[in-house]
C-alpha cells in the first residue's frame, strides 16, 4: 500500500501526541511538595452510611479487607514524605510550634456549656458511657457522658487527655469540656423522647434521668461531673472504615489503608493504648469549606484509652491480643492454659481513676487493639518512623498539660499517667526511630553543604554512627535521569559537604543526593535516602524525600 500524505500526517500526529503526553510528566511539579491535599470536588452528595459494629468487628477479625499487597508506600504523602494537611489531618506537633498551653486547649476553641438550666433533648446516641443530649441556656447542643459509679473521673478523664493528645497529633477532635450539673438543673420538655427499646419511644421522664444517674459517679457536693462534647459542625454521614474509600466522596481517592495518618495509629494507638480503635468510633461530617462541600473525618470517641474503658478498667489482655487470635487460642486450649503470654504475668499500674495499664515491658510492635484493621496492617517502617517523630515532639511539660486537664482528684493519678506516657514515649522512640535510616530536617545551603539531623541520635535512642556518605547527582526533572557528580562523606550529622565536582546551577535545576549512615552494627542505616533539591532564585528547596525500606 502506498503511503498517502494523509496517512503520514495522521501517523506523525498520533506519535507526537503519545510521546508528548508521556514526556510531559515530570517527577516534580512546581507546586511540590504540597502543603495541603487538594479537595477539588463538591461532596454534598455524601449520604449517611452507618458502620455496623458487629460486621465491622468480624470482618476485621476474620478477614483482610482492603489492599493486602505488602509494602505499599503510603498514598497520601507529598513528595517530601510528609502528610499534607487535609480533611483528615492537620500538621501540628512536630511541624508547627505548639506550647503546653496550646495542648491544654486542644480542639476547644470556645467555651463549655453555658451556665444556667440545661434542656434535655434526648438520650446519648453514641459511645458506651451513660449520658444524654442537652441544649444549654444559649441553645447549643451538647452530648454529656458520665463516669460510672465505681470509677469516678476515669472515663471522662481519659477523654479529656486523649482528645488533647490526638488533637496535637493532628486528628480532628470533638470539642470536649469537663463540666458539672445537678439533677435540678435539667429541664425535660414533653417533646423529648426516650427510646426504651428498639422502635419504641415515649416522652422522657425525670425517672429516666434518675435511672442514668443512679449508675453514675456523683461528686461530694451532689453534682455530677460530665464530659460535654459539642455537636460536630456539618451534616453527619456516618463513620469511616480503615480500608477502601467512601464511594460517595469524590475527594476520597486514596484507600484508607494507604493513608499514612491512619497507618500511624499503630504507633499513636500503642502509645495511648487506644484499644477500641474501630470504625464506629469515627465520624464523617459534610461541611462547607471555601464555598465547597467536603467530608471531614473525626476520630470521635477516644475515651477508651490508657487504662480504662467507659465502664471499667481495661482487661489485662487489651492492648496485647485481638479479640480472637487463632494461634494463642489453640495453644492455650491444648496446654490447659499453661501457654502464657506476657500480659498474664507482667506488672500493671492500677488506679481507680486511670484503670489498668502495663507498667513494664511495653512493646509497641506487639501492641494490638481489640480488632486490627487494614491501615494498621499496612503500616511500613517509614510510616511508623514518621509517627514516632510526632510522639518524640511531645515534651514532658506538654504531656503533663494534657493530663492536668483530666482534673483527677488524686494528684498521684496525674503524676502516674504522665509518667506512663513518658515511659511509653521513650519505648516508642527506641523502637521506631532506629528502624530505618533516621535522618530528617534536610537542607541544602547556597554553598552546597547539606545539613540534616539523625533523629535516633537526637532523642538518645541510638549511638551516633561512624559517619555518613552521600552520592551527588545532577537530576533532570523532565527525563528523570540522574548524572553523577561525585561522592562525599562526613563524620558527623552537622552536615556534609559537596564533592569536588559540585557547581551551583541555574534556578529551576535539580540535584539528587543519596545519603546513608555508616555503621556496621546497623545495616538498615546503610539503606540510602534519596533527596531532591530544586534550585530557586533564593536558594535550594527540598522537594523530594524517598526512604529505602529495610
Amino acid at each position: 500500500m502506498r503511503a498517502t500524505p494523509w496517512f503520514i500526517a495522521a501517523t506523525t500526529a498520533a506519535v507526537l501526541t503519545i510521546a508528548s503526553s508521556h514526556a510531559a510528566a515530570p517527577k516534580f511539579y512546581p507546586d511540590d511538595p504540597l502543603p495541603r491535599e487538594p479537595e477539588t470536588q463538591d461532596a454534598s452528595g455524601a449520604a449517611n452510611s452507618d458502620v455496623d459494629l458487629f460486621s465491622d468487628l468480624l470482618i476485621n477479625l476474620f478477614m483482610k479487607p482492603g489492599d493486602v499487597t505488602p509494602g505499599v508506600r503510603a498514598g497520601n504523602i507529598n513528595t517530601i514524605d510528609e502528610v499534607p494537611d487535609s480533611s483528615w489531618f492537620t500538621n501540628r506537633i512536630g511541624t508547627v510550634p505548639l506550647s503546653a498551653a496550646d495542648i491544654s486547649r486542644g480542639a476547644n476553641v470556645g467555651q463549655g456549656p453555658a451556665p444556667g438550666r440545661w434542656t434535655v433533648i434526648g438520650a446519648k446516641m453514641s459511645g458506651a458511657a451513660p449520658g444524654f443530649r442537652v441544649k444549654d441556656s444559649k441553645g447549643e447542643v451538647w452530648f454529656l457522658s458520665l463516669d460510672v459509679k465505681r470509677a469516678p473521673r476515669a472515663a471522662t478523664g481519659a477523654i479529656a487527655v486523649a482528645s488533647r493528645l490526638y488533637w496535637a497529633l493532628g486528628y480532628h477532635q470533638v470539642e470536649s469540656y469537663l463540666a458539672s450539673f445537678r439533677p435540678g438543673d435539667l429541664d425535660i420538655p414533653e417533646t423529648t423522647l426516650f427510646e426504651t427499646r428498639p422502635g419504641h419511644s415515649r416522652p422522657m421522664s425525670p425517672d429516666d434521668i434518675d435511672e442514668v444517674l443512679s449508675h453514675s459517679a456523683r461528686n461530694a457536693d451532689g453534682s455530677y461531673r460530665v464530659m460535654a462534647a459539642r455537636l460536630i459542625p456539618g451534616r453527619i454521614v456516618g463513620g469511616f472504615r480503615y480500608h477502601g474509600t467512601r464511594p460517595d466522596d469524590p475527594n476520597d481517592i486514596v484507600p484508607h489503608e494507604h493513608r499514612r495518618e491512619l497507618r500511624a495509629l499503630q504507633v499513636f494507638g500503642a502509645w495511648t493504648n487506644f484499644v477500641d480503635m474501630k470504625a464506629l468510633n469515627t465520624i464523617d461530617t459534610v461541611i462547607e469549606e471555601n464555598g465547597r462541600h467536603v467530608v471531614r473525618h473525626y476520630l470521635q470517641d477516644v475515651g477508651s484509652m490508657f487504662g480504662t474503658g467507659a465502664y471499667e478498667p481495661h482487661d489485662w489482655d487489651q492492648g496485647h491480643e485481638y479479640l480472637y487470635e487463632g494461634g494463642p487460642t489453640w495453644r492455650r486450649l491444648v496446654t490447659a492454659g499453661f501457654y502464657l503470654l506476657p500480659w498474664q504475668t507482667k506488672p500493671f499500674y492500677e488506679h481507680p481513676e486511670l484503670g489498668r495499664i502495663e507498667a513494664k515491658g511495653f512493646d509497641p510492635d506487639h501492641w494490638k487493639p481489640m480488632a486490627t484493621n487494614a491501615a494498621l496492617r499496612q503500616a511500613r517502617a517509614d510510616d511508623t518512623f514518621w509517627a514516632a517523630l510526632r510522639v518524640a515532639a511531645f515534651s514532658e511539660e506538654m504531656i503533663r498539660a494534657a493530663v492536668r486537664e483530666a482534673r483527677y482528684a488524686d494528684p498521684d493519678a496525674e503524676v502516674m499517667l504522665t509518667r506512663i506516657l513518658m515511659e511509653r514515649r521513650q519505648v516508642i522512640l527506641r523502637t521506631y526511630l532506629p528502624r530505618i535510616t533516621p535522618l530528617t530536617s534536610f537542607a541544602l545551603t547556597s554553598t552546597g553543604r547539606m545539613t540534616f539531623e539523625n533523629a535516633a541520635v537526637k532523642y538518645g535512642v541510638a549511638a551516633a554512627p561512624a559517619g555518613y556518605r552521600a552520592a551527588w547527582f545532577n537530576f533532570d526533572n523532565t527525563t528523570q535521569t540522574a548524572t553523577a557528580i561525585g561522592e562525599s562523606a562526613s563524620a558527623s550529622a552537622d552536615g556534609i559537604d559537596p564533592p569536588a565536582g559540585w557547581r551551583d546551577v541555574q534556578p529551576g535545576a535539580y540535584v539528587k543526593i543519596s545519603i546513608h549512615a555508616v555503621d556496621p552494627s546497623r545495616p538498615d542505616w546503610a539503606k540510602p535516602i534519596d533527596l531532591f533539591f530544586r534550585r530557586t532564585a533564593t536558594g535550594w528547596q527540598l522537594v523530594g524525600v524517598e526512604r529505602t525500606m529495610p
Partner: protein
Amino acid sequence: MASRRNICVVAVLGAVSFCLARPCVAQESRAAEIGAKQSEKAQQLKPYQPNVVEKVLLRLEEGRLNPPPITVSFDTVYSGGGLTGNVLYRRHYGDRSNWYGRAAYSVKHYKLVEVGTTVPDLGRKRRLTFSTNIGWRDATEVGFWGLGMATTEADRANYRFREAYGEARADYRAAPWLPVSVGVTFEGYELFSGEGRGPSIEDVYTPATAPGLGDSPDFVHSDIRAAIDTRPPGEYTRKGGEYSLGLHHYQDVDGGTYSFSRLEAGAVQHIPVIRETWVLSMRARLRSTIGGESQVPYFLLPTLGGGSSLRAYSSWRFRDRHAADANLEWRWIPNRAALDMAVFFDAGQVADEFNALRPNRFATAVGVGVRLHARQFMVMRMDVAHGSAGWHLTISNKVPF
C-alpha cells in the same frame, strides 16, 4: 474511495492516540493531577454498598437487635426430654414489658404450651420485676430409679406427668447485690404410666417405695429466696459469688396429705487465678425437706443427676428427701471472648435423713467440657462426664452453675 479510506485511517489513529495518551494527560501541577483523579471519581459516585458478607452479618445483627416476634430455640420442656424445638412468640408493650406465648415439642414427645408476661422496672427505683405465666406440660418418660443412693441403672422405671400451672412472681433487687424473689404457683399434676424403654413405674414400685404413687395431687407452691450476689450481670461469669437461701412450701389443696416444706441453700464462688488465666468455680447446694412427718410425692423429691449436678448420671437419677451436692470446675480460657474449657468434679448424695448425708457416701463424676460463650451468656456447652454408671454427654445452652 481512497479519500474515504484515508479518513478512516486518520480517525482510527486519532482514537488510538487519544486512548493511549489519556492516562498520562499532562498536568501543570500536582494539585491538578490529584484534581483530575477526583474529577474522574466524581463521575462514578454511588452510595456505600455492603458486600455479601456484610449483608449477611447485618441481617444477623438486625435480628439480634430487633428480633422478629416469632423465634425458634432449643429450650427444654423438662430435664431429660431430649432435643426440643421451641417456637416463641413475643410481643412488647410499655417500656420494656412483654408478653409471650411458647410451644415446645421434644424428640421424646415432651410438650409444653405457656403464655406469660414480664413487667420489669417497676417502683421508684425500677428495681422490681413482676412476671406471671400459665401453662401446661406433658413429660412422657421421666426416669425413676427408686429412693436413695443404693439403686442401679437396672432399677429404672418411667412415669409420665401432665402439669397445669399458673405462677405469679416478684423479683426485687434491694441493692444490686441483694436479689429477693417471691413466688406463688398453682401446680396441678396428673400422673400416668411412663412411656419409652423400660417398665412403667407402677410395674416396679409401690407407694411404699415411691411415695404418692397412684395419686395426682394439686399444690399451691409458694417460695421465697434471697441471695448475696456479687457476680457481674449476666449468666456467664468468671468472678464473684452468690450465696442464697430459699424456702419452699407445697400446700396440697386436696386435703393436705402431701403438704411439705423444703429449705434450699446454695453457694457459688468463682475465683479467677492469674488474671483469669484460669478460674476455679465451685458450687455447693443443700435441699432439705423440713420435718420428718410430711409425705413428699416421688416426683417432687429433691434429685441429683443431669447436666448441671452429677453430670455422669441421667437427669433425676437419685431422689430422696434430702440432697446435697458440690461441683468443682477448673476452667481455662483459650479465648476470653468466646471459648472456655473445663475439667470438673461433681459429687452428691441423696438421703432420707438429713443426718445421713455424708461426703464419703457421695456419688462422683469427673469430666471435661467445652463452652462457647458470649460476654454475658452461654451459647453452647458440651460436657462429657464419667461416673460409676459410665459416660454421659451434656449439650446445653445454659451455664452449669
